[in-house]
């Protein structure tokens, strides 16, 4: 607790949240219909609604953040407000951690429990003997009990490069931050720009890797639990890299075009940086548990 209670800013009424709620409605309702339409090859409006929802969401984010930035630039925010934002961002990242935890949990469960059980481990001797006599437990699971086959994605090639790329990007981002704190705007711009490029490079290689998986390895989303966990974990991670990169790009534009942020006040930049580091840590876990081990 601070000993002095600063003046607290309670924002005026704002139209943005309700726009955001409508956007989420369109996204959820649109996606719900779209998924049925694509998988059943039926015509429908779901996809359009989904796209409209995403557009509305972006519109909302732009509007909302413009308000917040204006307020911040006008010095309406106290230190306390800044702390609120920081805590909000950290707990948001924590909730993201838990989202990934669900998928890592599924991965570990499949590897440590489900697959050995299907091969008769634990109290499942009959499972193997009666239901899956031909199945052999292995990880990566290259042949499922149902007989789907695939090849494994080795870690030595693209995944390793990608790991290095992301690690370097965390370092460059760190230097961008110190640049900002020491008021070296040149270093800030250079390092931040570099980080974004590295992020884009990562995404590019990821796409190449997916194409390789589908075309050469037969490793697909529906190739059994190995493919499932591989694509959902790397896929959601990729989505987060994309979001993080956009986030950083916005910071870059604010710095280059508007000369925003000072050595002492740069919450948005810091939030983007935290997010980026978080995405990086997730990748390390991914690299170890999805690719290497």
């Amino acid at each position, binding site marked *: 607790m601070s000993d002095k209670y600063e*003046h607290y800013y309670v924002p*005026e009424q704002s139209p943005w949240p*309700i726009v955001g709620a409508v956007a989420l409605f369109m996204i959820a309702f649109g996606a719900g219909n779209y998924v*049925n339409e694509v998988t059943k090859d039926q015509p429908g409006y779901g996809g359009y609604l989904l796209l409209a929802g995403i557009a509305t969401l972006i519109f909302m984010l732009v509007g909302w953040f413009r308000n917040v930035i204006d307020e911040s630039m006008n010095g309406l925010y106290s230190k306390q407000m800044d702390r609120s934002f920081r805590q909000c961002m950290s707990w948001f990242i924590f909730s993201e951690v*838990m989202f990934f935890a669900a998928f890592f949990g599924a991965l570990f469960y499949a590897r440590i429990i489900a697959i050995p059980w299907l091969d008769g481990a634990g109290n499942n001797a009959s499972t193997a003997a009666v239901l899956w006599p031909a199945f052999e437990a292995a990880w990566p699971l290259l042949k499922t009990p149902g007989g789907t086959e695939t090849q494994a994605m080795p870690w030595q090639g693209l995944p390793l490069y990608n790991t290095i790329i992301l690690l370097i990007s965390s370092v460059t981002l760190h230097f961008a931050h110190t640049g900002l704190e020491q008021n070296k705007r040149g270093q800030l711009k250079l390092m931040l720009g570099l980080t974004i490029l590295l992020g884009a490079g990562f995404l590019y290689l990821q796409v190449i890797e997916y194409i390789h998986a589908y075309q050469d390895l037969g490793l697909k989303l529906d190739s059994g639990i190995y493919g499932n966990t591989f694509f959902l974990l790397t896929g959601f991670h990729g989505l987060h890299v994309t979001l993080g990169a956009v986030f950083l790009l916005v910071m870059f534009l604010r710095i280059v075009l508007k000369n925003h942020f000072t050595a002492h006040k740069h919450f948005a930049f810091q939030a983007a940086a935290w997010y980026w580091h978080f995405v990086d840590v997730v990748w390390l876990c991914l690299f170890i548990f999805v690719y290497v081990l």
Partner: protein
Amino acid sequence: MSTVTTDPHAHAEHEHHGPAKGLKRWLYTTNHKDIGTLYLLFSLLMFFIGGAMAMVIRAELFQPGLQIVEPNFFNQMTTVHGLIMVFGAVMPAFTGLANWLIPMMIGAPDMALPRMNNWSFWILPFAFSILLASLFMEGGGPSFGWTFYAPLSTTYSNDSTALFVFSVHIMGISSIMGAINVIVTIMNLRAPGMTYMKMPLFVWTWFITAYLLIAVMPVLAGVVTMVLTDKYFGTSFFDAAGGGDPVLFQHIFWFFGHPEVYIMILPAFGIISSIVPTFSRKPLFGYASMVYATSSIALLSFLVWAHHMFTTGMPVAAELFFMYCTMLIAVPTGVKVFNWVATMWRGAMTFEVPMMFSLAFIVLFTIGGFSGLMLAITPADFQYHDTYFVVAHFHYVLVTGAIFSIMAAAYYWLPKWTGHMYDETLGQWHFWCSLISVNVLFFPMHFVGLAGMPRRIPDYALQFADFNALISIGGFAFGLSQLLFVWLVVKCIKGGEKATDQVWEGAEGLEWTIASPAPYHSFTTPPEIK
């Protein structure tokens, strides 16, 4: 309930406007009281919709045989009843109370992130419209139970599943944002001198609840995502043929689900801990131990999830582990019950409606806790599992637990919200009608369950007929009793005896130091806490 602002602290520059007028006030609001009100009204609406579905269930079960609805529709009613009550009635009610009360209790001007607060609320009506709309699509709505076990919810479900999944996603977003807001408000906006160990217990219990929420709602989002990809995109998380396991679904779901049930009871503990001392005119017996007990319950809640899965064929060692951990939860919960009783001991009690609901809560929640403990005993659970004994257990902790605490809270703080005293006689009628009917409704379910009636069935063997008729009658009576509540609330908003600032003789806490009705912005300059 329009709060006319005659703000006693009106001296700062900007935000000293009263509420805007008309619809815009509610759509664009950034005021914690407006948003709290919206949450509470929404929750009441959902309680009635979910309750109406329960009435369909009870009407079908009034007699053996199929009379009113098809089995498929019956399952949709059960499923959506559970979902609406849990996510639409109880959770938003608590969030509404948090919005109204936490800033007032800690001496803050508002929630920490007022705009996000508005967003959290307005997602909900949309999310539930999607869920309810899916009932009307071809093939009907979700019918796999509120627990949506795979593969019934994947390979074998109908087209509404995608809508179900996405509506749960956005409900989750709403809950997470709401929880973050609570945490940040509490960590950051306490008035000077309001140390953690001086916070009212309602604030404490919500603080811990909010952590539970941000820890488990994302896991729910994860598991519905897997359901979506399993159903539509050929993954096999829950399909042995692809190396997955249907039981994996249950592990992930209950990792969310068990903490979820404590999300629905911890704020209730906070409410009861506020009300009992007031009407006993005696301080809470053990404040610190209440805080520790709440934290212990929250921590333990992450280690007990598989007690819902004793019959799934886990190895014995796992069954034992989860049995022991589950039993342990009785200890901190007991600490709470004992503390409430010790608070009453040698107090000077009066029995206004909030206190009546709190007393009923203590007895009936404890009964629900006892049946929970019985369910925790693995070998016995083999007999109880998926019977009406379980249905009895969770309605005791949810209806006479969570819902009764929400009722108690509504009566307790209504005068502060509206500036008027509620009609005490009508309130006592509401209480006694509810108390009697709710027990006619849920108590016999224990017997029916022990006698072997499975849950989630639209028709049953003849031996269960008499009791089911009785249960249904209790159900209708309980439903009708709730109309008294609505009447009372409307009356109280419209007028009534003027409430004092203090309202209750024994009440303590910051919210009782400001005017009734509470001014639009509670504290613009922070109060000093000694």
